């Protein structure tokens, strides 16, 4: 995987809240389906270190940040609407 075609994703969650748990599950499923072998996910638990919210100016949880490929994109919510997530991340349906 190269940096050009890979997806570098960062998911901000707050412990085990229902939407945080759902967002992690939905994101993993979606990536396995549409980006197999082409993604990395970094889950950041703001309950453990709220200060990390400042890096991406996180306001609502859960929030997904697409760091790569640029430009940076963000999607708020539990990512249950797969279509909306694919559009938001500019991923063509496979």
């Amino acid at each position, binding site marked *: 995987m190269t940096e050009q075609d890979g997806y570098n994703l960062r998911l901000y969650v*707050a412990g085990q*809240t*229902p*939407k*945080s748990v759902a967002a992690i599950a939905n994101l993993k499923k979606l990536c396995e389906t549409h980006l197999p072998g082409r993604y990395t996910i970094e889950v950041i638990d*703001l*309950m453990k270190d*709220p*200060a990390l*919210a*400042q890096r991406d*100016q*996180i*306001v*609502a*949880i*859960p*929030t997904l940040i697409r760091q790569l490929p640029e430009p940076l994109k*963000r999607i*708020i*919510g*539990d990512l249950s609407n797969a279509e909306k997530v694919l559009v938001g991340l500019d991923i063509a349906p496979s």
Partner: protein
Amino acid sequence: MTLSTRTVQDERPRNEAEETVEAIHQGNVDAVVVQGPEGPQVIMLQGADAPYHVLVERMSDGALTLDGSGSIVYVNSRLCALTAQTTAELVGRNFASLFSGAVPVQSADDSASEAQLIRADGGPLPVSVWMRQMTMGGVVATLVTLTDLSIHRHAEEVASAERFARSILEQATDAIVVLALDGRITHASGVAEQLAGASPVGQLFSDAFPLDAQSARHQGTLARFSRESLDRALATKPFHGVEVKLRKEGLSGRSFLLSAGPLVNDAKAIVGSIVTLIDITERKRAEEQQTMLVAELNHRVKNILAIVQSVAGQTLRTSPSLPAFNKAFSGRIQAVSIAHDILTQTRWIGIGLNELLSTVLAPYGIGEGRLITEGAPVLLEARLVLPLSMVLHELATNASKYGALSAPFGKVAISWRLRDDGRRLELIWLERGGPAVEHRGARGFGTTLIDRVVRFDLDGEASLDFPPEGLRCVLGFALSAETSPEELPGSAVRTD
């Protein structure tokens, strides 16, 4: 605390901020990050209503909320179960589409109304619907709960069936108990309670109704079981009509028919048994009495046949011609028949002497003043009736053929008195006004029969005198049997 928007950079596209606000507004987030005095803080977006949400999701009634236009905006999981539909299928639908028939509306007195909820997988489900409209933050919403009435109805049916079964048990005329699989009594009929002396519910069957081991041993079916295993056997195996006795005070002489059959539940699984104890004491007594009566009848028929045979033989030997035989034999059999009528009518108890004379001598004019009776009332035992009837028949026949009754003005005086402190009877037959008697020397069958019957069957003696003015016959015999007829030597007739 207010949301900090100062961290949102000015150069960020406007739609990102809007998206964030919209996501919060739509409930797509469950936490927010705010800028506190010591840096960013995570705040959970759980309100005070969270515990109630849990309660509503867990409650056993269906619940839903409607918006101002009557569209469903929320359903709990119980409602999904009641309608057999998913949340996604239900949310957004019109409330009225849930029901067949009348659509429930909020009642003025806050009471519930009944309605038929449509199930996706079958017929309508009766429900009780409660509704209340509320305004929350300027938004009109209606709260609705739906209670499954089929459960209540089923419970009512179960309760009704229980009452029905109990009334059967209470009214049953036999002892009926219901056993659980461990042999303990769960229900008992009124008769079973009486039999046990108190309510046997909760006791082991063998404790409440201890079977007489002696009687059970004779019944192979039960003998295989010890007292402990009997309880379990009765609760799990069928028994049909095993005769037992109970080892209980006051029931020692009584016999019971023990039966047990399985008790099955709706799922056809055996959950115990129904045991009945039918008191067959009276039935057994009646059966024994019937057996005895049949044996007695058999005995008497044989006796009668023996008498007929004896009378026929002796009449034949002393009859000069067939017509003479026919007449004498018919008369004697008639006498036997009359005696039997008397015995049957008096149920073999016996008869008064006066009554016997009136019956036996009726064909010879006892009611016309030609036969005169005199004596104190005497009760004759049944065993005396047949022989005495035959003797009287012989005397009357002789009188009508050769003696006082053969002449227009002849009479017979019959008198009696008690002897030996009332133990013996002396009866005198005296004829007057007949043709002059000529003692014929040789004894005819009549006199032979009288002599034999009196001696062997009446255990007495007879003397016959033939003076010219008329026959005088004196009979003496015991009124009570001192020896049983079977012990007597050869007999002309038997009446035992």
